[in-house]
């Protein structure tokens, strides 16, 4: 997996995990998310449009990031999940907590 991180003009951080989000890459994602929050970026969009695989450790990293962001007064939102990602969200009933947004741009609009 490759992880792209950028910060938009409105201060929202955008994280793009490309490829497989499994046990190995989940650690990297978890660290990236907690570094962002520690660095003052507590509003984060994770763009899952290029995440070809997700398992429970990837899910754990997303939940960890969500909790850290909320504790810092922000939020973590997920956008553009691929079918493989949606399938795991549904099987775990996390499609409510990790409600998928249609686009990265509008992920923080509502």
């Amino acid at each position, binding site marked *: 997996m490759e992880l792209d991180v950028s910060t938009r003009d409105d201060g929202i951080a955008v994280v793009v995990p490309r490829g497989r989000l499994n046990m190995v890459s989940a650690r990297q994602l978890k660290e990236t998310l907690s570094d962002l929050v520690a660095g003052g970026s507590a509003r984060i969009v994770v763009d899952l449009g290029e995440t070809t695989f997700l398992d429970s450790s990837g899910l*754990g990293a997303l939940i960890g990031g969500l909790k850290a962001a909320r504790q810092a007064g922000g939020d973590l939102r997920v956008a553009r999940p691929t079918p493989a990602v949606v399938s795991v969200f549904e*099987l775990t009933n996390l499609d409510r907590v990790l409600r998928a947004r249609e686009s990265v741009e509008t992920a923080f609009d509502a």
Partner: protein
Amino acid sequence: MPESAAGRGGEAGRPAVLDELAAAPHRLVLSAAADPEVMDLVHSMLEHLFAHHPQVTDPIRMKFEMSVIEILGNIVEHAYAHDSALPAVDPSEARRFEIQLLATDREVVATLSDNGMPVSLDLGDLSMPDELAESGRGLALAASALDTLWFERVEGRNHWCLACNLG
């Protein structure tokens, strides 16, 4: 919910496909050290399997791949967790697993086996943890995606069998 049995002893729950697997000319078998880096190679094996079995539809591919990786991830993460507490083992015996994959017209099957410590789990009683839990979803996730999830400890090895029915 899948058919499941966890170390209940006896042959009652043993999936019939295990016998077919042993003789299937197209099965894929990999044996390797149980380390996190090997997961990518298992993803490649699954790609190879699916490329030659168009009868396995995308939704089933996703569920099956995720389940195999969950069970393998557990082996890598948990099965050797207490190794350092054990007397030094012969290196030839150290932390190895085997995975077999097969697709037939009726199902797609994986078996995993490892020489790690005995697993005592009740696969008949798996539930999702709290919404905000960061771990503990792997087995429940695999169980809800699979039609068969079966476990047995035999002669010092853990044996898992996973299957999704086709069509």
